[in-house]
């Protein structure tokens, strides 16, 4: 009798737990909450990228980045500060919430010319780092099918664990698994699996804090497990909602390098 009661109780607990998870949020809802996490109308700051190979040798790239969302278009412009051979190069991306392909341009100071480039090459690595162009941007939740796998505590944070599989079979990752903090809907960790289903990279958020009322990631690390290469990105001198003018995202700004 006690055994039956225990089993019934166990089933009830499992069902209740499942119902609670389902009632809370679905995988898609969680990833939509991540995507729509308020970031302010505009953000600016300096990015330092540290490329660290398996011998521990480090190369450093520095950029100044401005982001502004206006009329459902997220505009990003980045000015390359270091190393010297890429200084004054600038890169601009317009990302559309309606799912249109991004528009991208690059200004090469040696050629003194702005060149439109295709955003189709999202699997290309950004500046030799472990981040692809796709990793650098905000992937729209509608691009993937999301499943809430479990909930667990990671690094002292209560997290949802969501598995995402692209609807596009040719996508560079077979799946990603994201640990999303329940408190603030920031991704704390993400695993990227290659086309053969093997773990390829792990993204970890090492530092984050609230600035001007918005959660901001200050330090991330992407570790390519297969090649044992890491890239750290440190975001500093952050300013939010300072009213970056629309003119920052123009031909004039790209060629001026500021």
């Amino acid at each position, binding site marked *: 009798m006690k055994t039956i009661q225990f089993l019934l109780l166990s089933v009830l607990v499992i069902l209740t737990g499942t119902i609670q998870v389902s009632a809370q949020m679905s995988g898609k809802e969680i990833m939509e909450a991540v995507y729509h996490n308020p970031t302010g109308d505009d953000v600016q700051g300096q990015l330092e990228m540290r490329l660290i190979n398996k011998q521990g040798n480090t190369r450093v790239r520095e950029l100044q980045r401005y982001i502004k969302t206006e009329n459902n278009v997220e505009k990003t412009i980045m000015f390359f500060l270091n190393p010297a*051979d890429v200084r004054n190069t600038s890169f601009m991306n317009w990302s559309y919430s309606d799912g249109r*392909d991004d528009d991208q341009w690059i200004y090469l100071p040696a050629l*003194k010319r702005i060149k*439109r480039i295709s955003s189709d090459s999202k699997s*290309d690595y950004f500046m030799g780092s472990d981040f692809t162009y796709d990793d650098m941007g905000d992937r729209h939740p509608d691009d993937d099918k999301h499943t809430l796998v479990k909930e667990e505590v990671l690094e002292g944070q209560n997290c949802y664990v969501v598995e995402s599989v692209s609807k596009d079979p040719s996508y560079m990752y077979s799946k990603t698994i994201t640990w999303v903090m329940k408190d603030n809907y920031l991704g704390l960790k993400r695993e990227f699996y290659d086309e053969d289903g093997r773990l390829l990279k792990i993204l970890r958020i090492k530092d984050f804090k609230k600035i001007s009322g918005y959660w901001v990631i200050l330090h991330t690390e992407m570790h390519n497990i297969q090649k044992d290469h890491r890239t750290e990105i440190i975001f500093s001198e952050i300013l939010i909602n300072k009213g970056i003018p629309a003119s920052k995202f123009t*031909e*004039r700004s790209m060629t*001026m*390098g*500021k």
Partner: protein
Amino acid sequence: MKKKTITWIFIGFAVLTGSQIIAQGVDISGFARNYTGFLMNDATEFSIIQNTFNLNFEQRTDKIGFKVNPVLYHYFDRDIDFRLREAYLDAYFPKLDIRIGQQQIIYGKAEGVFITDIVSPKDLSEFLLPDFDEIRMGVTAVKLNYFFGMNNLEAVWVPVFTPTRFAEPGSIWAPKLFVPPLPLLGYSSKEIKPSVENSEVFLRFSRMTSKADFELVAGYHWLDDPALHMTGVIDQTTMKPIGLDAKAEYHRMSMAGGSLSTTLGGFVIRTEAAYNHGRYFQTSDPLATDGTAKKDYLHYMIGLDYTLKGVKLSAQFIQEFIADYEEGINQEEFENTMTFLAAKDFFREKVWLELFAYAGLNKGDALIRPKISYAFADGFDLQMGANLFTGDREGRFGQYKDNSMIYWKIKYSF
């Protein structure tokens, strides 16, 4: 002696004022580079040994800015060559920028060819082999840019005409000489004196949108290459032609054109066209006045860029069409060229492989340029490559068939 003095003044200026300039927030950048090349048909002969020291002094505030870009070229077999590529002042207003001084001005979307890109003259002293920022020379100009939204209206006034710089006579890069039917008895050239009347003007309107970027340009200018006018010299006793008197002359031209780039799926489509009015072509037609024919011509390009498995691919088709063509003109009615580019990086942008080629379709000649670059430290780049000229010696590229070379470049950017 004069050049040496300038060089020492330059170095002295750089060293003595460097610390003060840094203290004032002036950004100093540049590079030092060694470029050594060997002719492939004679491995013992250098085609070039060049040491370059390029300095940029630059400062920008919200309202003003300036840039000075002196460059020193040192050769083992020539005097030191000091050039001031750019030296200008900027003034910035809310919607207007003004730039005055020596500056490079670049138009268009074609790569490796010059269609609407005619403001800055070319330095062809080493044909098309230097980097493109070194091929384009600065011009003394006043440039106004008026910005409204994503639009840019640009007006350029060039008071001093600067012609194309060709290779010195005797250089392996000296262009193929026109062979006159009779001996040349005299040669002269006419220079364009700086004056308001002789100045050049250009207008450009550009717009960036999510669908496409485009430029519309127009120019009233001097063609940077001179036309050779030849008149017969008659023997007064026999009244028969005994030779020719040649005069190199620059001519006024007008140009209107534009360029456009857009994306289609993973492709970037680029196109550029210019209609040029009033160019003098050399002709062998005996009835032609002074051996030239004045014609309009159309110059256009269609290009495609695509990335396939990390390999950046690009191809361009370029055509020059001479309107109202006449037999005897020393250029074909349709002159077709193609360019190809394939580039890929390895080891996180430490190693780059690149193949760029021009192919002359009329003569079946080509310039093929494979190269490999290795960035063994940030800012430090080692490059090895070849410039292979092949095909008909009558062609633009085939004429340098004996100049195929292998080279290395070691460059430190700071």
